[in-house]
């Protein structure tokens, strides 16, 4: 029994990391309707930035904040320099400053639900949040109401990178930091985002915890630690087959 509880707790710890990376994925998806498969690498890079800063004698929390800010800039730059030239796809939207804040606070104090509420409120009730959702859905119409679609996209990337950097820094103490680590985490995060619904920030967080706990319990009692990663793959397949919109995803209805 004690082992079981230990596995659940470990699952929750890992789940928090998956949740924040899943949030980053949802963020990019909300703002661009694309999945960013480089999210793990961005988080990895950010973690190394933090590590370098700490090694250079910077205090942990200062390094934490600097890393988030640097990651945000990195995300914006990536979008402006790399993504934008090849973009003429549907673009944009998002509100993610609050998500970033939410995750940061979450990792500090564990007040996930409060932060989630903030994030939800940001998308739901602020003009910027609404504009970001609008831009993702219909760039042309968004321009016709005066929304600067291109910058909304850059903002979305910046916020996602910031959130991803939080995930990287959270996972460093939980698991060992090594270069391929994030690709596994990204897979769990991707499964988490799908389980919750790729357009639902709240679903992504819950999905993160579900995946974290499942992974640990199945790994301990059923399939062994070597096959843990397949839990994520199986979950992805099951969700896509049975409920593609995820637990909380919105099924878009449209008349034609």
């Amino acid at each position, binding site marked *: 029994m004690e082992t079981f509880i230990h596995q659940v707790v470990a699952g929750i710890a890992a789940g928090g990391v998956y949740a924040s990376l899943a949030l980053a994925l949802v963020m990019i998806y909300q703002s661009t309707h694309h999945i960013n498969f480089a999210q793990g690498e961005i988080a990895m890079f950010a973690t190394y930035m933090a590590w370098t800063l700490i090694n250079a004698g910077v205090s942990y929390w200062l390094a934490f904040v600097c890393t988030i800010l640097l990651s945000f800039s990195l995300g914006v730059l990536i979008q402006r320099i790399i993504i934008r030239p090849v973009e003429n796809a549907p673009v944009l939207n998002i509100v993610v400053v609050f998500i970033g804040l939410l995750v940061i606070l979450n990792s500090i104090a564990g007040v996930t639900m409060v932060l989630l509420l903030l994030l939800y409120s940001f998308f739901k009730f602020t*003009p910027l949040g*609404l*504009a970001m*959702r*609008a831009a993702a*859905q*219909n760039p*042309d*119409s*968004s*321009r*016709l*109401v*005066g*929304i*600067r*679609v291109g910058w909304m996209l850059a903002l979305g990337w910046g916020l996602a990178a910031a959130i991803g950097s939080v995930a990287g820094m959270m996972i460093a103490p939980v698991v060992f930091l090594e270069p391929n680590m994030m690709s596994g985490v990204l897979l769990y995060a991707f499964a988490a985002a799908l389980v919750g619904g790729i357009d639902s920030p709240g679903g992504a967080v819950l999905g993160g915890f579900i995946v974290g706990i499942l992974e640990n319990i199945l790994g301990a009692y059923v399939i062994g630690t070597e096959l843990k990663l397949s839990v994520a793959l199986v979950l992805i397949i099951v969700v896509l087959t049975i409920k593609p919109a995820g637990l909380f995803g*919105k099924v*878009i*209805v*449209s*008349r034609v």
Partner: protein
Amino acid sequence: MSRMLLEVKDLFAGYGATEVLHGLSMQIEEGSITTLLGANGAGKTTTLRALSKMIKVRGQILFDGKAIEGKATEDIVRLGVAHVPDGRGTFGSLSTEENLQLGSYTRKDKHEVALDQEKMYSYFPRLKERRNQQAGTLSGGEQQMLAIARALMLRPRLLLLDEPSFGLAPLIVREIFDIMQTINQRDKVTILLVEQNAAMALDLANYAYLLETGKLVLSGLSKDLKQDEAVRRSYLGH
């Protein structure tokens, strides 16, 4: 002579290598309703898209005396040009009310915005009933009303309307045309209307332009165009 709100001189525009407008010139008087008629493919929608710079243009577009042909869509909107595109362009996954809020995205006068929203619900009571409903689930007529209401939330000086009657039942079309008249007279919004339904458009409008394959072939008071032999034969069917 009243002043011109919009003046277009020698406008060329198209899609990629395909040029659709070949040197279009037109004027829209402030406070008027002007209709742009023409067959499918004549370039009516392209004209509207060119005016709000959704496509690249050559030539001159003066809005309120100032050149806007070099501006981006988002900035033309800020000058007070609202565009209801073909296909309506509603945000299907957002609610009716959120669509209206987006219409006033560039405005800072929150109190006035709230009043305008109530005004839209008085123009279109059915939108009020559906205020929390996902816009994609509205009927075609309701979506058209929503598209017009969203455009009006900008408090535009010029409203560009692309075939508001398209695919709608005659009763709904009547309702929408009545609202256009109200908007023009009570709210002093200048309207440029692209329409397939030439008879109704000519009844509503003060001025009319006739477009054929990217060039204007006829212009004048709409009551005169209604009497024109060629217009009657080709567009009014009698």
